[in-house]
């Protein structure tokens, strides 16, 4: 806010003096010619006019007005009227009484007015400081905090120019419609020495911003009248704003480090669990076979079968881990071939017998389902991930259903479980790497569910590499359905083209 009324220019003062004299002359004309009154009434009327002038404009105007009023009073009302001479000595007293009263009263009223204006200014300063403190509290720490602070200061105080020198980064931030006249050296000096520089002509300040004895930076501000205490409060607010941002930054860095540690240990736990499960069966079997009291011959064979199965499982895990790493690194080489979906699913379930256990599984595929062109190994891995998820996230005795349908030139395969489902808020994140969905009903972490949080990320990457799409549908409490849509293979001629296109796409990689 511009406080022009406090320091009016010379022209404005001349205008106000002229106004004051004009009022006195008009009053004289009215009292002497229009409604003739006696000398006492005229004296009081002048007094009132001068008091009003003092209240509106100030002491200079009122004093000049007083002199004019005394002259007019003498000329028009004190006998002999029409001259500046005074016959009766009593009238001298009346004349000086008018002059003295009007000057003293003017002084008093000007002082009151000045105090009122000052109080108003203080109040305004307080309001501005309050507004600034609020906006500093609400600063978005995701963006540059010092930049926001200077903008807020310039905006709140309607300053012509604001600069903020950040001592830690030695950066300078500017805001406002005018160029700040001070140099960066002055700012640096103010910050390190804690000095204050004032330029009363331009109404410019440079002041140190400190927190306790710690230099935080310095603030330059132009075109604003601020009391010393307001300026002090302003720099304190700026210091607090900058420090708060720094503290938040440090805290979020610490939090990020903690989360990454947590992630690493969860991931290691999950990997340890995945690999140690088949190893447990293998170790238990081999040690049973090697023990001093070997098992009966028919049991021996059973142990060896277990070892064989679990060795395969382990080998599958290793190749999945390698595929995962390849997808991660962006080296996916698709070996595309025309594949029948029912056959693909059958082969998936054949490899997952030990995981699916004695779960009821429904597979529904129509007879005339068109084939798809996919990398068999990759696509099998994708469905293994989806079925593995369905098994993990639903109770052991609930069924898992897999269906495939033709829809608008696509084959859509759905893997459905009857588990607790996924909360709507989690939907966008479940395909993210390492993300583990929370229980939708209790909101509890499901970290004890084995897995690394990679399955769905792999599935998405593989499906995307095939140009297909993958999504999930869920009703919390009723289960989840994961859907994969793949282009159906085109008839022979078109199919050749597709294979050529796919080969070309592959060659580009």
């Amino acid at each position, binding site marked *: 806010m511009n406080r022009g009324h406090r320091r009016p220019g010379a022209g404005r003062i001349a205008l106000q003096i002229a106004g004051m004299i004009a009022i006195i002359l008009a009053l004289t004309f009215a009292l002497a010619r229009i409604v003739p009154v006696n000398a006492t009434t005229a004296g009081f009327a002048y007094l009132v006019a001068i008091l009003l002038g003092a209240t509106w404009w100030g002491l200079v105007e009122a004093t000049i007005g007083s002199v004019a009023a005394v002259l007019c009073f003498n000329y028009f009302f004190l006998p002999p009227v029409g001259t500046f001479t005074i016959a009766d000595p009593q009238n001298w007293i009346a004349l000086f009484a008018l002059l003295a009263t009007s000057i003293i009263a003017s002084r008093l009223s000007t002082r009151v007015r000045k105090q009122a204006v000052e109080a108003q200014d203080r109040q305004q300063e307080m309001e501005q400081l309050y507004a600034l403190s609020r906006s500093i509290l609400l600063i978005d720490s995701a963006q540059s905090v010092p930049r926001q602070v200077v903008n807020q200061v310039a905006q709140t105080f309607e300053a012509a120019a604001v600069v903020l020198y950040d001592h830690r980064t030695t950066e300078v931030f500017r805001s406002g419609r005018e160029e700040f006249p001070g140099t960066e050296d002055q700012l640096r000096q103010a910050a390190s020495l804690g000095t204050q520089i004032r330029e009363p002509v331009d109404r410019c300040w440079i002041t140190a911003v400190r927190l306790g004895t710690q230099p935080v930076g310095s603030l330059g501000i132009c075109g604003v009248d601020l009391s010393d205490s307001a300026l002090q409060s302003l720099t304190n607010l700026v210091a607090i704003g900058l420090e708060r941002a720094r503290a938040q930054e440090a805290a979020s860095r610490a939090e990020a480090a903690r989360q990454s540690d947590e992630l690493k240990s969860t991931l290691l736990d999950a990997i340890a669990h995945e690999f140690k499960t088949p190893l*447990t069966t293998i170790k*238990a079997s081999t040690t*049973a076979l090697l023990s001093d009291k070997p098992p009966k011959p028919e049991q021996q064979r*059973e142990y060896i079968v277990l070892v064989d199965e679990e060795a395969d499982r382990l080998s599958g895990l290793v190749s999945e881990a390698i595929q995962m790493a390849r997808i991660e690194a962006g080296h996916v080489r698709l070996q595309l071939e025309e594949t029948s979906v029912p056959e693909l699913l059958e082969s998936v379930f054949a490899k997952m017998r030990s995981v699916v256990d004695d779960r009821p599984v429904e597979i529904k595929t129509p007879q005339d389902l068109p084939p798809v062109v996919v990398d068999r190994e990759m696509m099998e891995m994708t469905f293994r991930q989806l079925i593995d998820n369905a098994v993990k996230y639903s109770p*052991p005795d609930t069924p898992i259903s897999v269906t495939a349908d033709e829809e608008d030139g696509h084959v859509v395969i759905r893997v459905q479980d009857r588990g607790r489902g996924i909360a709507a808020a989690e939907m966008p994140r479940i395909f993210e790497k390492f993300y583990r969905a929370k229980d939708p009903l209790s909101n509890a972490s499901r970290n*004890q569910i084995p897995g690394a949080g990679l399955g769905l990320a792999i599935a998405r990457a593989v499906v995307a590499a095939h140009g297909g799409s993958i999504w999930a549908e869920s009703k919390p409490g009723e289960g989840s359905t994961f859907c994969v849509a793949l282009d159906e293979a085109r008839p022979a001629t078109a199919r050749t083209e597709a294979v050529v296109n796919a080969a070309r796409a592959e060659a580009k990689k």
Partner: protein
Amino acid sequence: MSIGRILIVDDDPQIRRVMKMTLTGEGYEVGEARSGEEAEAELRKSQYDLMLLDMNMPGQGGFETCKAIRAFSDISIIVLTVRNTERDKVSALDAGADDFITKPFSSPELLARIRAALRRAPAPPEGGPRQMKLEGVEIDFQARKVLVGGEQLHLTPKEFDLLRYLVMNPNRAIPHRELLQAVWGPDYGDQVEYLRVFIKQLRRKIEASPDKPVYLLTEPWVGYRFALPVSQER
């Protein structure tokens, strides 16, 4: 002939298969559960002597299952876990497990742990006292019962054996190794954390203020001592 009934709780069917084969080959009768919830239901339905409980399961994990089962059963519990840190061991014991075994394990080791868990510390040859009355605590060695303030307490078999060994050897600092071998068996001796957890649980059950024990005292660097009040001295 069955030498004990064991419930296997693990979500992995292959692990259940291999453990079942090993245990039935040894002569145990075996039941299976695929989750913590199933295990709880099975234990409420029929009698078992011991449970092999996997820590890492979908749904209610092993930790919660262990606590839930301890609320109604004194069954011996051996926890199976892939983690091997001190903290994991202590939290498993704290949840009420009697012992734990780290995956992958060898079959003879599993069998040894099961034997140790099912083993009851033998009563002293001369029989010892049949009962003991302390201030507010009554121990019936024959019926394997403890009454605190007239109310019967649930002590797991291992807790009871530990208490009995301490009470039978009053006012003597018993070394950790001796206690572990007396209660868990000759293969044990270095598992000081077992004693720490079990003594803590016993103090919680029989001491008026577990933080300032008057009976079950720690002998720093040595072991534990049962302080028999003077009036009770034989």
